[in-house]
């Protein structure tokens, strides 16, 4: 691990001043991804700004029934078991509990989870010379390499990495809004605009500026999100990243679908909001026929590689199963 200086932030203003003046400074929260990447030599910050002591761990209702605010430092374990989340947004609770292990969830924070980087083997190990995300212009080792865990939607020839987060998939389905702060002020970023597709700049994961600190994630009020579910398909029964995952919320009245939220994980550079599937579902009778048709529509543009083509059919079946599970909820 490279040497770095360490500072402990006492308020957000002070934290963002440090990152505004040092381009290679990074915020440190739970550290479960950053410290690991520093051990691997992938991340080499010259300064760590420890934000763990900031008062940003609250989970509370927004005024006027506008939803719930999750502080950026709320630990994944605490968010997953908070009554407001369990009751109103079960899909988020389930997604968080599907991720990592209890020990890691006790460390990992909401803001940190948003910023975790891909688990693409070619990115994670600098022994591989090719990775446009780690070393822009060097090529993509995964494109013609071992690409079993890689993207099938929204990828580019520059990068076929996937976002590994379960939480992000639920946040995408719930239309979450990321609140950020910098020395210049505050702004709100809808989750759909927070993470980026790789395009020609896969080295840039998000639209967050280097000096901006995530302070909270807001969940809008979605009454039908009480009928929601997260399905994760992986190589082990627990403690493994998703091959494919699906977050679903459905509003069904008298057997007809009024509204649908569907997002996919493990298939793209960001949590993939399945808007084509959602549009195909609205107005249809809830049932396997409509679910399969919606899945076909969403995956029509999918492209597989040597080792991951199985994900296309897997994603369709996972969508049908997750939608069926929610449709059968009373």
């Amino acid at each position, binding site marked *: 691990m490279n*040497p*770095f200086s360490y500072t402990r932030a006492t308020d957000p203003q002070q934290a963002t001043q440090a990152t505004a003046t040092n381009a290679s400074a990074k915020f440190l929260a739970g550290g479960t991804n950053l410290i690991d990447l520093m051990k691997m030599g992938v991340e080499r910050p010259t300064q760590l700004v420890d934000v763990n002591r900031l008062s940003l761990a609250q989970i509370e209702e927004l005024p006027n029934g506008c939803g719930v605010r999750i502080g950026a430092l709320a630990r994944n374990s605490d968010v997953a078991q908070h009554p407001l989340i369990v009751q109103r947004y079960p899909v988020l609770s389930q997604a968080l509990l599907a991720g990592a*292990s209890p020990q890691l969830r006790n460390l990992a924070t909401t803001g940190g989870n948003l910023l975790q980087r891909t688990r693409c083997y070619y990115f994670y190990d600098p022994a591989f010379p090719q990775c446009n995300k780690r070393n822009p212009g060097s090529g993509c080792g995964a494109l013609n390499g071992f690409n079993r865990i890689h993207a099938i939607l929204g990828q580019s020839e520059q990068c076929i990495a996937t976002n590994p987060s379960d939480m992000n998939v639920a946040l995408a389905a719930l239309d979450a809004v990321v609140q950020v702060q910098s020395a210049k002020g505050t702004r709100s970023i809808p989750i759909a605009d927070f993470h980026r597709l790789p395009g020609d700049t896969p080295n840039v994961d998000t639209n967050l500026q280097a000096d901006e600190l995530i302070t909270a994630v807001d969940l809008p009020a979605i009454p039908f999100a009480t009928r929601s579910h997260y399905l994760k398909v992986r190589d082990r029964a627990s403690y493994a990243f998703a091959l494919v995952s699906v977050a679903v919320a459905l509003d069904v009245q008298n057997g007809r679908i009024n509204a649908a939220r569907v997002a996919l994980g493990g298939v793209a550079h960001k949590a993939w909001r399945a808007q084509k599937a959602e549009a195909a579902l609205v107005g249809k009778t809830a049932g396997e026929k409509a679910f399969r048709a919606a899945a076909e529509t969403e995956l029509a543009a999918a492209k597989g590689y040597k080792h991951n083509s199985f994900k296309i059919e897997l994603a369709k079946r996972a969508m049908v199963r997750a939608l069926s599970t929610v449709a059968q909820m009373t």
Partner: protein
Amino acid sequence: MNSSDDEVPGDETPPLRSSDAFHEILIFGSPETRRRFLKQVAGTSVAITVGSPLSLFAQRMSETAGGSAPSSAATLPLRLKINGKDVAVEVDTRTTLLDLLREQLHLTGSKKGCDHGQCGACTVLVNGRRINSCLSLAIVHDGEEVTTIEGLANGEQLHPVQAAFVEHDGFQCGYCTPGQICSAVACIKEGHVKSDDEIREWMSGNLCRCGAYPNIVDAIKEAAAKSA
């Protein structure tokens, strides 16, 4: 090499010379046999894999070990309560909580398995919550309370979870056991012990390559029942 040293079957590394003991004192502070074993094994792998990705990995491993900080590194004072005792130390900012425990404080019960948060052998309790000490910088925990496997027993009386692991043979080689037991103590306290499946899910962050899982589940069930 004295008579109490472990035999290493199949290890072709030449036996350590007496001068190596002095070398080891400089590195580790005490010539502990297990470390000598690890050092021999590490030396062997580097010799085999010079120039390969594995040698880079070995180099990184040595960079993360507590004793090899370059002089330019920043150190900071740190106060912790570890197993009920106040501890004040200076740490290199890069030191993980695991390396602080093992290399500086010689609490070698917490194990370094993967050093990447994938195996759970390093699990300790911080302010009563289980975490992977290998992925957490020591300096972050200034002022906090850490409980390791060494802090669970009450004098000569084993903690109920320790006793249950002995009773049910919840281990074979024992390397993952300190992490399993610390994790199990938290798992019981969290209340995630209502069924075998629930125990398996909530203990999934602790791998056991000997495959002692059925006995580990039995041990946790018994300890949970006794503490209820």
